[in-house]
């Protein structure tokens, strides 16, 4: 049997029971690899339940920094009886299966194409530690120790991490380090070079950080000066607000008074949450909320109000697997249409698609400038994978010279200096954006009556067709203005001659780049465009026009972004071929590679049949 051999490029999977405290041990492991300077990204695959069900932690290690999911598992740490067989079965040939040998493997476990490594974690743990609570936690630490040996992971990094972690209570560090040693020693004793996977120190991590997308968005909102949030708990968006609260506690307390320079209101539901955001934004504060699918559906009516009454609104949608309650702890990119065209009537919303924590932070801040500049809802389209998992990301940066763009707002002075009569919905600049005033600005000028009913340029109610039409058409002018303001796409023209390109967005990015690199190896340079916002700019359309076929890669069933490309920019459907993964798990490089292979073959076929010109 040939064992899988690899340095700094493999996949480790931990199979645990949720609520059993495995998280800290698993994080310790991933963090250690990161600290060894080797690019790494862990993904939690957890159940919609609090305790007792299977949960997996998949760690991708890749020297070149391809940190999307690859597909397949090289080494499994299987400590969950419920899924033992599945974990055993799913391991790649040549892989390594580590299990708790305190209990024998059932007889029907007889694969001969893998290396089985039994370590009596429970036994080692119970022999050493008495406190039952501690036992549960330390059992997990022991397998990290074993892995350190098996993967040649610098042991000191682990011990340093532990000491750092328990700075405040060093007494707790001891048993943890002891546990690491137990695992390390046992492995060394019984499985000397059984494993051909190893971590070699590197410098590929640079000044990168390991961070989850939700924290980055919450932090971005703090930096952007958000002061009001109404929110309602829902997985996987809750931690966006938790992060906002955490960082506010740190940065938003008035020294003198101990009072908060922020208002965080846990609302009674999502309708109230978005209502609070709209009310606060209308009143001149920067406000936002975060939710997931079901919340998006409930916010539809009020999003339509914000679109039509033109009220800045920042909303974060951390997408999960729909429809309905679906799989609350699985990822997807399936709210694209629901967000782009939220609410009844003719409505369109601006969408931002971050792909890593750094972009989460940036978009988390930019969204407020955009919302106030465009006076319309801006929806940040994150997802469970990006939001709740730690990702290797470039360090965050903030330009201290940056000033908030509060958009077109008239001060008392402005009002006094106005020559002509001011109208809330009067487009004086021709960009479709009108000047607003905050309540209380001026004793006699600038007051107006905001309404979701149709209004004339001075915001009075009207049923006059021509006036209604003019307003609706102005909103389209504003839509065009938006194209010039939202973040542009990331285009990579690897081979101008190649008429095949791929288009993708958000968390699909990383696995796609790995797939592209594989084709490069084979000598095929595929051009790519990463969409970062909707509406789409000219670059996006040009890229599509410059190619004969575009593979649109998405993590939903109905090719939702493809729909937007056709609807908004009249791109021919036949030109856009979909690659869709929507099983709830982050898309893998293997999946994308296969699909592209097949589609290219089909293309070639067509080419031969001379139907090349069909697009």
């Amino acid at each position: 049997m040939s064992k899988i051999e690899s340095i700094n490029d493999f996949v480790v999977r931990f199979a645990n029971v949720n609520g059993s405290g495995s998280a800290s041990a698993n994080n310790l492991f991933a963090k250690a690899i990161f600290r060894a300077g080797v690019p790494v990204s862990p993904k939690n695959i957890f159940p919609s339940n609090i305790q007792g069900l299977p949960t997996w932690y998949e760690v991708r290690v890749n020297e070149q920094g391809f940190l999307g999911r690859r597909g397949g598992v090289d080494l499994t740490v299987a400590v969950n009886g419920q899924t033992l067989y599945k974990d055993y079965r799913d391991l790649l040939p040549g892989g390594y299966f580590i299990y708790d040998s305190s209990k024998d493997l059932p007889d029907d476990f007889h694969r001969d194409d893998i290396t089985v490594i039994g370590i009596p974690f429970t036994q080692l743990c119970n022999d050493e530690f008495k406190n039952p609570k501690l036992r549960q936690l330390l059992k997990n630490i022991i397998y990290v120790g074993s892995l350190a040996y098996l993967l040649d992971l610098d042991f000191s990094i682990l011990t340093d991490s532990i000491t750092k972690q328990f700075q405040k209570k060093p007494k707790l560090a001891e048993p943890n380090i002891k546990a690491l040693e137990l695992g390390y020693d046992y492995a060394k004793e019984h499985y000397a070079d059984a494993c051909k996977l190893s971590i070699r120190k590197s410098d590929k991590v640079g000044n990168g950080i390991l961070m989850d997308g939700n924290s980055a968005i919450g932090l971005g909102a703090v930096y952007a000066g958000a002061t009001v949030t109404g929110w309602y708990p829902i997985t996987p968006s809750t931690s966006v607000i938790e992060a906002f609260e955490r960082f506010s506690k740190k940065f938003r307390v008035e020294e003198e008074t101990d009072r908060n320079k922020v208002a965080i209101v846990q609302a009674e539901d999502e309708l109230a949450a978005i209502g609070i955001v709209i009310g606060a934004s209308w009143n001149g504060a920067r406000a936002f909320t975060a939710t997931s699918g079901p919340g998006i559906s409930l916010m539809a009516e009020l999003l339509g109000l914000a679109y039509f009454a033109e009220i800045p609104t920042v909303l974060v949608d951390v997408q999960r697997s729909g429809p309905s309650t679906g799989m609350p702890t699985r990822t997807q990119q399936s709210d694209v249409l629901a967000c782009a065209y939220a609410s009844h009537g003719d409505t369109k919303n601006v969408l931002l698609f971050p792909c890593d924590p750094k972009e989460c932070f940036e978009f988390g801040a930019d969204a407020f400038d955009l919302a106030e500049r465009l006076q319309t809802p801006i929806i940040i389209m994150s997802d469970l994978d990006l939001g709740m998992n730690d990702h290797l990301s470039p360090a965050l940066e903030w330009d201290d010279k940056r000033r908030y763009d509060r958009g077109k707002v008239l001060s008392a002075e402005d009002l006094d200096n106005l020559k002509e009569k001011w109208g809330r919905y009067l487009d004086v600049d021709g960009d479709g954006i009108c000047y607003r005033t905050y309540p209380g600005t001026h004793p006699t000028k600038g007051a107006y009556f905001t309404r979701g009913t149709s209004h004339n340029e001075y915001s009075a109610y009207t049923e006059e067709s021509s006036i209604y039409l003019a307003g609706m058409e102005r909103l389209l002018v504003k839509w065009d203005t938006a194209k010039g303001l939202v973040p542009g796409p990331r285009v990579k023209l690897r081979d101008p001659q190649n008429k095949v390109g791929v288009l993708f967005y958000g968390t699909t990015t990383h696995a796609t780049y790995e797939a592209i690199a594989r084709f490069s190896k084979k000598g095929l340079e595929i051009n790519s465009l990463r969409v970062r916002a909707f509406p789409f700019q000219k670059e996006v359309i040009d890229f599509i026009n410059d190619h004969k076929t575009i593979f649109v890669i998405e993590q939903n069933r109905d090719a939702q972004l493809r729909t937007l490309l056709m609807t908004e920019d009249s791109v021919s459907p036949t030109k856009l071929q979909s690659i869709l993964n929507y099983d709830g798990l982050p898309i893998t490089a293997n999946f994308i590679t296969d699909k592209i292979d097949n589609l290219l073959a089909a293309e070639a076929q067509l080419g031969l049949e001379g139907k090349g010109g069909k697009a």
Partner: protein
Amino acid sequence: MSFDRPTFRHPNQTKNKAGFTRQDYEGAISTLCAGCGHDSATAGIIQACFELGVEPHRVAKMSGIGCSSKTPAYFLSRSHGFNSVHGRMPSIATGANMANRDLLYIGVSGDGDTASIGMGQFAHALRRNLNLNYICMNNGCYGLTKGQDSATADKGSAGKKGVPNPYSSIDLCELAIELGASYVARGFSGDKKQLVPLIKGAFAHSGLAFIDIISPCVTFNNTSSSTKSYEYVREHIEATNTFDFVPLQQEILAEYEEGSSQEVTMHDGSKIHLHKSDSTKDVTDRLTSVNNLETEKAKGRLLTGLLYVNPDIMETHDIINSTHRPLNSLTEQDLCPGNAALQKINEGLR
């Protein structure tokens, strides 16, 4: 459609202490039905604001959807207004209030807007004790959609269609007290004398002041068989007590004979003097207040006036301990931690 009021009306008017005329508190001309109770309620709001001498532009008017929710267009045209969507006024008002605690907020809603689709937001604005003057113009029906029974329609009451309502009604005042409202009153659009001080007291109150104004719908629910008709209300109305509202500034001038009245000091220092009489009810105890309402109901009477008040209670901003400065007035300096802090955070993530 909303028409601007011709400004040549009332050439010279007396000014209030803030230097405004009554006209300065008016709005566009009402497009409601002639005789609609909501117009009288609107007049009451205008009168109260005028007498209090609030600065019009320091008031924000919020509303939902309905004939009642249209009224903010008909008063205080110098104030910003927000006619939002059906049943969501409380959340919009919450956001607005969080953004700027220095303005006065008046939220106008209807019985449909509040007791049906808005029930959840109504309950939770109460629970948070939002600093809002919440006025429900209650006509027991859905006026704007042509008169269907609302959840406040009394059992057996019949509107224009003539079909008696089979469901028992929700008493918004009892409910507000149950849910922790700190100022609860009931007025009648037909009794301006009683209504105006109730609204003034509400403005002086810090926290959620709820006023249920029985405001007949002359087009769909003013029949002889309706318990929300002008006639029925006039014949069945009772009052907890009569009272004067005495703004802080005038306190010194006001004189009250010892024992003749009960004095309640509002958050802003203003005082409410409840005139004592045999029929006077205690309005400072929650359960007693609910009892008062129920006993009168049992007698087939409709209790109005100030029903319950508890001036010493924390409003939302106090509860969440937010800065006394309006949040919408904070700038980069106040809000942005800057790059140095960010680099520290990066460090923590390595």
